[in-house]
């Protein structure tokens, strides 16, 4: 009986540890394929995305629009950097000129902005949705 209880306790602790280890630090963005539609500005289209921050070491994210070779493409948004508290999501809009949308723009990305740390390589996460 004691062995059974001990085994149960061990399994519970392992599951809790794995859950805690793998569930604390994620960066998500949807949709994977973003559609742009006409905006209120002439010759400019707008796309709407949603970001979810589950990283407790990151609070700031930047927005990027990139071409196929991951080089920057001009865009506008209400903000290029967003503060997103841990375990919260935020919707944002990206405005791109129609000529860039046709010829250059390929991805809309969000990238985590890391603070300076001591003696540590830091992991920056970037998620890129494809423009359709």
């Amino acid at each position, binding site marked *: 009986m004691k062995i059974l209880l001990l085994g149960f306790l061990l399994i519970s602790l392992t599951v809790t540890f794995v859950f805690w*280890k*793998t*569930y*604390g*630090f*994620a*960066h*998500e*963005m*949807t*949709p*994977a*394929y973003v559609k742009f539609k006409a905006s209120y500005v002439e010759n400019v289209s707008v796309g709407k995305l949603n970001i979810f921050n*589950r*990283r407790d*070491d990151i609070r700031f994210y930047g927005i990027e629009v990139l071409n196929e070779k991951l080089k920057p493409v001009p865009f506008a948004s209400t903000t290029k950097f967003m503060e997103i508290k841990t375990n919260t999501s935020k919707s944002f809009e990206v405005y791109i000129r129609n000529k860039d949308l046709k010829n250059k723009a390929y*991805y809309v*990305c969000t*990238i985590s902005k*890391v603070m*300076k*740390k*001591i*003696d*540590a*390589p*830091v*992991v*920056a*996460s*970037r*998620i*890129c*949705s*494809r423009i359709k």
Partner: protein
Amino acid sequence: MIKKFITLGFLLSICSGAWATSTPITGTVEAKCAIFTTVNPKYGNPNPYTLTTLPASGGTEAILRTDVLAADYFDLLITHPNSFSSSPTLSDSVGFTGASVVSAVGVSGMSVYETNKLVVNNTTRFRLLLAGATWFKVSSVMVYGALDTTALPAGNYTSLITATCLAR
């Protein structure tokens, strides 16, 4: 008698209203990629001119996990550092090396990610062919000085590993 019927009817109408009440829970499953930092990396300093994440030298290698909800929708690009994002002033040459490998898989078929990976300069590209979780290990080694004997100046050193989930 009529009053009783009216009261009964009134009570029944309230009850039927209560039965009709429902609270829908809605959700959407869509193709998405999430990047998890499972283990944060750390540099060890085994000798005066080296910083390394190798555990044998006192460092910690980064462990990243990606979760994808749809098969073959994403590529993962991992870039290990080739410079410091912040450091004391360095007057000698800085040589960076590193590697990104698949360290664990959620589905057995994901083991091909390692054999199919594409390495260009300091970026490794993995095609995420299957839905599920995959773990990646990233290492970084920095050697200071052309003759490998120059001591690193004291101070704080920070470099950046970038993990990019790219919709195909």
